[in-house]
C-alpha cells in the first residue's frame, strides 16, 4: 500500500473558477452541487480558526479508511461553503462521528440511507448564527447548511461512501447532501439546554451527532394542553415501518425535537425533560403482535424481559429513557418531529473548541 501521508496533495488547475469546479466534479469530490475550490489561501483561512496543526491525524474514516487530517477537513469545509469561523463546529462534528460507538462506516453505507443530524448547543450557536428557529431543518440558513454539508463531504471524500461503490442507500434522504445541522432553540426552551442535561457546562458549546433516517413530522394544532400534545406525540411515534423498535437494544438514540409551542405547553402541564423522557419510554411502545414477522424481526435485538410468547407484551422504542434526546427546535407553529437513529449508531457528543 502507498505510504500514508498526513498532508493533502496540491494540484494545479488551468482555467477559471468554473473550470476548477468542473475538475472537482470530474474527480468525484462533490455531492452533485457546485463547491468552492479549496485553494491554499482559503484552506489557510479555515485553519486559522483552530489551534490544531494541519497534519494532525484525527483518525481513519470508514468504510474505506481514508486518513482524516485537520487540513483535509478544512479543505472539505471550504468546498462546502463554510465561513472560516464555522471550522471549530465542523471539526467537533468530524471528531464525533469518528468515535467508535457512532459506527460511521456502517451508517454511511447502509441501505437504510442514514445521514448525520448535528445538534449544536451553547453560546457558539448564537455567535455564528446557527439557527434553531424558523425552518431550522430546511438547510436554507448558511451555517446550518454548510456545516452539515462539510461533515457529509468529509464522510464522502475521505470515507469513500459514494453511490458508485460503498454507498448502498436504497433511497436515502436529502440529509445525505447537507446533513441536518441545527441549534437547539435555547431561548424558547422551558428547560435547561440539552447539553447541560447531558452533563456539559452551560458555558460550553457542544455538538451532539446521530445518524438518522430522516425527519418524521408530528403535527398537533388542536389540543390546548400539554397532556393532549403528548398523547399525539406518543401516537405518532407508535409507528410500524421503522426498524428502531427491533433494534432498540443497540442503544439507539431517539431525537424528539419539540417546537417551542409544544414544549412550553408540556412544561406548563408540569413536565420536566426527564419526566417527559420517562413518560415517552413508558408509552411509546408497540405490542409484540404488531412486530412479529415484520420490518427487521429476523435481526431483532430485544432485552430478555420482553416475553415474545405474549402477543400483548409491549416493546419500547428505545432501551432506556436516557436514549431519548429531547431538544427544542423550530419557530412559531405547532409542528414537532422525531428522528430515530439508524441501525447501530449510538450517537456521540464533542465539545467545540473555541
Amino acid at each position, binding site marked *: *500500500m502507498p505510504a500514508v501521508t498526513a498532508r493533502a496533495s496540491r494540484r494545479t488547475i488551468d482555467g477559471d473558477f468554473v473550470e476548477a469546479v468542473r475538475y472537482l466534479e470530474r474527480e468525484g469530490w462533490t455531492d452533485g452541487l457546485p463547491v468552492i475550490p479549496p485553494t491554499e489561501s482559503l484552506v489557510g483561512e479555515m485553519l486559522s480558526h483552530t489551534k490544531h496543526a494541519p497534519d494532525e491525524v484525527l483518525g481513519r474514516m470508514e*468504510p*474505506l*479508511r481514508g486518513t482524516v487530517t485537520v487540513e483535509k477537513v478544512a479543505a472539505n469545509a471550504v468546498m462546502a461553503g463554510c465561513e472560516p469561523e464555522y471550522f471549530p463546529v465542523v471539526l467537533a462534528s468530524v471528531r464525533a462521528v469518528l468515535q467508535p460507538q457512532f459506527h460511521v462506516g456502517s451508517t454511511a*453505507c447502509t441501505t437504510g440511507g442514514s445521514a448525520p443530524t448535528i445538534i449544536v448547543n451553547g453560546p457558539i450557536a448564537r455567535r455564528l448564527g446557527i439557527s434553531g428557529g424558523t425552518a431550522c431543518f430546511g438547510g436554507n440558513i448558511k451555517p446550518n447548511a454548510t456545516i452539515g454539508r462539510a461533515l457529509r463531504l468529509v464522510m464522502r471524500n475521505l470515507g*469513500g461512501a459514494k453511490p458508485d*461503490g*460503498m454507498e*448502498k442507500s436504497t433511497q436515502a434522504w436529502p440529509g445525505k447532501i447537507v446533513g441536518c445541522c441545527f441549534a437547539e432553540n435555547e431561548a424558547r426552551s422551558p428547560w435547561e439546554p440539552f447539553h447541560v442535561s447531558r452533563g456539559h457546562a452551560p458555558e460550553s458549546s457542544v455538538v451532539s451527532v446521530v445518524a438518522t433516517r430522516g425527519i418524521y413530522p408530528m403535527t398537533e394544532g388542536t389540543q390546548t394542553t400539554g397532556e393532549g400534545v403528548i398523547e399525539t406525540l406518543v401516537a405518532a411515534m407508535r409507528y410500524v415501518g421503522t426498524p428502531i423498535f427491533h433494534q432498540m437494544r443497540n442503544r439507539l438514540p431517539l431525537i424528539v425535537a419539540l417546537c417551542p409551542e409544544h414544549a412550553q405547553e408540556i412544561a406548563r402541564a408540569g413536565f420536566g425533560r426527564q419526566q417527559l423522557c420517562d413518560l415517552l419510554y413508558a408509552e411509546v411502545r408497540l405490542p409484540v403482535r404488531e412486530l412479529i414477522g415484520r420490518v427487521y424481526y429476523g435481526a431483532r435485538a430485544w432485552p430478555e424481559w420482553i416475553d415474545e410468547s405474549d402477543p400483548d407484551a409491549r416493546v419500547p422504542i428505545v432501551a432506556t429513557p436516557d436514549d431519548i434526546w429531547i431538544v427544542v427546535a423550530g419557530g412559531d407553529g405547532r409542528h414537532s418531529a422525531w428522528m430515530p437513529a439508524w441501525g447501530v449508531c449510538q450517537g456521540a457528543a464533542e465539545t467545540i473548541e473555541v
Partner: protein
Amino acid sequence: MEQQGRPAVTVVTQAFEGAAVARAAALGLPDHPRVAIAHPLASRRGDEVERMAVAAVAPVVAALVKR
C-alpha cells in the same frame, strides 16, 4: 479472520459485490476471495435460503482450497 491467518471467504449478494471489493482493498486484502449469491436474500422463504446455502457450499470450498 484472514489477517489473523485463518483462511476466509466472504459470501455476499450480487448487489453488494462492488462494495465488498472496495472494502477488501481498503483493508489491504485485494485478493480476498468472495462468493456472490443472488439478490435479494432477505425476502426469501426458509427453504429457498437453504437451497441457496447448499448451492454455495461448493464455490466456497473451491475458493478456500484454491488458496
